């Protein structure tokens, strides 16, 4: 890994090289702040600096194959500049060409999709990503693509209609004409730039291309902060104004983005983003799919990773309860080898896990669903979408005949960590799954937890809802 102070990416059709530490940018300068510092890119707006409003949405294009690019909308307020390395950054200024509006712009104009206009550049970019990836999308798909963009003026209806009207050209536009060209240019960047190692002031930012390099760096620098999607970590910079010292960015490791299938299980690379996992899981792990469908927004899921959600070990991390219910195992890797820990044992305290400081989470292994089990997931939040769980649940019951032989009732948001309702589980084992039993299990859940009252809700709501989820689980499994 050689040291360098530059990162290179494609913007406005040109290869752009930024000297970190020089041009006024640090390794943790966000793409949003980079854009807003230039006179030509004021179109991208800041509405929150925390991934909740989408005003800062830009599109990242990366080669998907030799001739195609993949376009992804992300929140530029959460992305550190080095993460652009070798990619194309598309901003709202790039859509209009030869005085012609892009179809998504044209439809937004004609359908009164903007009022004050401040959210509009962000919507345009989410619409562009949708335009490039989906033809004649359904209303659900459109809404999903726009969940990460807040608008306080319009009431959204015209924007949804603009999306439906615009996305009918199979993604053809001036970007498609340029694709081959862009891929050529991106290849020329990746040839001479591999792993990045940036030194700037008292910051070190390392972004290796090989897993081996990452493991070695980690064993030599156990104090390094691991970053993947940065949707958690970036907030420390944008909201708390911390200066992060030593960063190990795993987002370039293709080794962590693989899915391996075996007879009895699937292994998901910890670096996979949650949107890709969501799509993959729709049929094989419906409870995970359901949970990921109300996880953050499209922009967040395209950045956020499995490893990051598990690594945060937050008591309200949404994948944790459902992974426990699915009997998943966490694969950890260090320079000296691999080991696996059941998800139910991995979290040991408030944001504390069994991971050693020289290890990284390399994969999440999920056994195929047992036909004798029923598994469901639930998320309760004030707003259904793009909200953090007030509480969540991942439940599984395994049956022998009519009787419950094993139970996992994992709850998020009810304690300092994702926690199983053990007395309720014990109660259920050996019982039939009837309404009375479910309600009684609910009573155990109610008395088992002493949750907090906070901004999201009072403790009593959490306990009542946690209790009721048992009845809901029962009702959902009656057919």
């Amino acid at each position, binding site marked *: 890994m050689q040291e360098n102070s530059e990162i290179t990416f494609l913007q406005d059709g040109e290869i752009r090289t930024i000297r970190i530490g020089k041009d006024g940018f640090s390794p943790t300068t966000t793409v949003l702040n980079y854009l807003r510092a230039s006179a030509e890119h004021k179109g991208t707006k800041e509405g929150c600096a925390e991934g909740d409003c989408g005003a800062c949405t830009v599109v990242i294009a990366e080669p998907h194959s030799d001739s195609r690019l993949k376009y992804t909308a992300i929140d530029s307020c959460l992305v550190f500049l080095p993460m652009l390395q070798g990619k194309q950054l598309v901003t709202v200024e790039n859509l209009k060409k030869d005085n012609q509006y892009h179809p998504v712009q044209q439809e937004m104009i004609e359908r009164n999709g903007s009022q004050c*206009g401040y959210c509009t*550049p962000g919507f345009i970019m989410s619409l562009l990503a949708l335009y490039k990836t989906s033809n004649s999308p359904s209303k659900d798909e459109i809404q999903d693509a726009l969940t990460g963009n807040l608008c306080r003026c319009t009431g959204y209806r015209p924007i949804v209609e603009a999306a439906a009207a615009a996305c009918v050209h199979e993604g053809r536009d001036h970007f498609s004409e340029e694709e081959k060209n862009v891929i050529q240019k991106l290849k020329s960047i990746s040839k001479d730039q591999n792993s990045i190692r940036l030194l700037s002031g008292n910051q070190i930012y390392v972004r290796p291309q090989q897993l081996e390099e990452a493991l070695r760096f980690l064993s030599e620098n156990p104090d390094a902060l691991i970053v993947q999607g940065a949707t958690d970590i970036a907030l420390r910079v944008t909201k708390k104004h911390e200066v992060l010292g030593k960063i190990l960015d795993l987002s370039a490791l293709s080794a962590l983005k693989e899915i391996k299938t075996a007879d009895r299980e699937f292994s998901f690379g910890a670096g996979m983003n949650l949107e890709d996992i969501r799509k993959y899981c729709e049929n094989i792990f419906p409870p995970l799919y359901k949970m990921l469908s109300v996880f953050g927004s499209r922009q967040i899921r395209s950045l956020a990773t499995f490893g990051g959600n598990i690594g945060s070990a937050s008591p309200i991390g949404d994948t944790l309860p459902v992974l426990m219910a699915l009997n998943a195992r966490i694969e950890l890797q260090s320079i000296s080898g691999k080991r696996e820990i059941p998800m139910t044992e991995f979290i040991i305290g408030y944001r504390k896990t069994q991971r050693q400081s020289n290890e990284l989470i390399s994969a999440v292994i999920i056994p195929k669903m047992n036909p004798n089990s029923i598994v469901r997931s639930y998320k309760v939040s004030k707003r259904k979408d793009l909200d953090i769980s007030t509480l969540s649940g991942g439940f599984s019951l395994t049956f022998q005949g009519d009787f419950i032989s094993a139970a996992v009732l994992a709850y998020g948001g009810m304690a300092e960590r994702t926690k199983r309702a053990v007395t309720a589980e014990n109660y259920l084992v050996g019982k039939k799954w009837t309404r009375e039993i479910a309600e009684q299990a609910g009573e155990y859940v109610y008395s088992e937890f002493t949750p907090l009252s906070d901004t999201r809700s009072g403790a009593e709501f959490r306990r009542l*809802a946690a209790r009721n989820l048992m009845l809901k689980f029962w009702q959902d499994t009656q057919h």
Partner: protein
Amino acid sequence: MKNIPHDSAGKHVSGQSVYIDDILVNTQLLYGHIMYSPHAYAKIKSIDISTASSVPGVHAIVLAKDIPGENQLGPVVHDEPCLADKEVICVGQAIVLIAAENAECARAAEKLIRIEFEPLDAILDLETAIQKNTLLAPPRTMQRGDADAALKKSKHILSGEVRTGAQEHWYLETQSCLAIPGEGHEMNIYSSTQHPSETQAIVAEVLGLPKNEIVVETRRMGGAFGGKETQANHTAAWAALLAHATRRPVSIRLFRDDDQKMTGKRHPYFIHYEVGFDDAGKIDALKFEQHADGGCATDLSIAILERAMLHADNAYFIPNMTVVGKAYKTNLPSNTAFRGFGGPQGVAGMETVIDRIARFLKKDSADIRKINFYETGERAITHYGQEVELNRLPVLFEELSLSSDYYQRRKEVDAFNARNEFYKKGLAFTPVKFGISFTTTFLNQAGALVNIYKDGTILVNHGGTEMGQGLNTKIAQIAASEMGVSLDRIKVNATNTSKVPNTSATAASAGTDLNGMAVKNAIDILRARIVKLMASEFSKSYPAEASAEKDILIKDNTIFDNQYPERKISFAEAMTLANLQQVSLSATGFYATPNIGWDKQKGWGKPFNYYAFGMSVSEVLLDTLTGYVRHLRTDILHDVGDSINEGLDIGQVEGGFIQGLGWCTTEEIKWDSKGNLLNHSPDTYKIPSVQDVPEDFRVQLLQNAPNPNAIRKSKAVAEPPLMLAFSSWLAIKDAISAVGDHAYEPSFRLPATNEVILLSIEEIKKKKNQ
């Protein structure tokens, strides 16, 4: 011309619309930063900035004592310091201003500033304020008839309480201002303000300068909703003070969390009611006591309270009615204007009363509404004496109950609820009647300056501001059609206090009504000049058959004699000619709403120019185990008179409804026991997302209902639709009530979060099982 897109739409979608923070300034621009109070109420014992001043990159640190003019921001009452001096009265109150080369420097300096406080007992909620009677102003009363006497005679009496929560404006663009010092004392302010004239006045006051030194310009706001009616002045004053201290341009754009912590919200209300009615549900007597949480300063609280009282009747004739209004001081940021301006709180009280009566009598609430609607004659007079003219309530009710299939769906909802235990549906039909005009009568005035250039293009200046509502688009449409030229000849300028002085805020939904008329007035003057000139010019060539002024018309960019159509000239050529003939092509226009006025003390008269009406039917599906609500369908029929621009008007109706829906459901604001705002970012403050729009959302404008009292027979539209969201709010209550087969009155409040809903359901289940 009815569906002209927003005049900035092309710029919006390509990122070319310039907001304050996008203005390019030379490299001398400084970053303005505000250090604010961490205490709700405390004495300031000392402030030490010595180490902070020496941080490299820091250009100025300004304290209250450094303010050259008056340390005041209060728009009506002077009870709001620009910078805290001896004491702080809320968390988020500005104490120190810092100008630095960038944000990092400013934050580094802030960390080194030492302020010693002596905390005092703060009042942090309305209940305590009511107990301690911390009134901001003497209580107000509006009354008609004798409610007490009538109550005694009423067949049925119910009393109860309604609580409505605060609401954060959550404009996408936070409070922003760029101040650029000019030569001498000049200060140029680019502000995201709804009220440039007042921003100018406040900046002049804090700088101790006459107003003619200060120019305020507002191109557009990235949303405002009332939040930039007075509170944009704060950011402008701070930027101006720093620019004054450094003699350099200073820009401030509040960080989202700071904006949420520092600025005021929609006033929380506590409303007590006592209502008397007969077996049919017809109301004979009603008493309301409205209590408003004004926050730490007066701001607009009294005017907001007044509007809440004026809307306590919503759409109903109540023969004997008394409304008492009180606004209290608490140690929270001063609450302020928010779309509806007190109206929504007043209406929430009234709609709750109707809902209670219906549940009590076990009747359909729509029927209770219908028999209490304003009618004609004596039953058209409000509790403050104004007649409800051109009453659209009957026609709206009739059309919407048909188009929404209300009565059939009521049966279906009941049937669904009988079949389902875990899911319940709710349905509600609610009206709104909203008075249009500033209730402070003199504010109902507007000015314009219209310039025509020699090439025939027209520059329109007016006192209104563009915040997304499409005011400038409508103004351009009005100007084009009044002048007889095409829309592409018109440009509407950024609002600028040096072009049109002494204007009112763009508020009270009256932007188009007032400014449109002022522009029309200016154009009438110009057209008269042009007509006079062209009559005489045409006559020169035809001395025998002179052109008469009355026959000169302007249409489609052409000026011609209607009697002799061959006598014509293009508009542009005519303007060159006018210049040669020494005719002035610039005119100011003015408008003041006629025939309104009322006695505020007595609470009697005609405060409003006219009323806007609307109705809505909403259906929701409730998951009774989690309190989660799905908004299945909403039908709206709204009255905008003859719409000037249907696309824009529908946008206001939909946007207003969704904003109201947020206030009624997910937008919850909490403070901790020290007065710290807990929901200070979108992480925990949840405005509606695209997924929260009713799944089936049908919005119609009432057709064939011209309004004789406003420009081009249109009606104001911005605020009233917000209150249509009460249909969703009460539909939720209806669904909760269904859990107990409508036998128990549900505990309910606003917002009806999933928590409020679930707790209410659990309470009903307990009662049912007893």
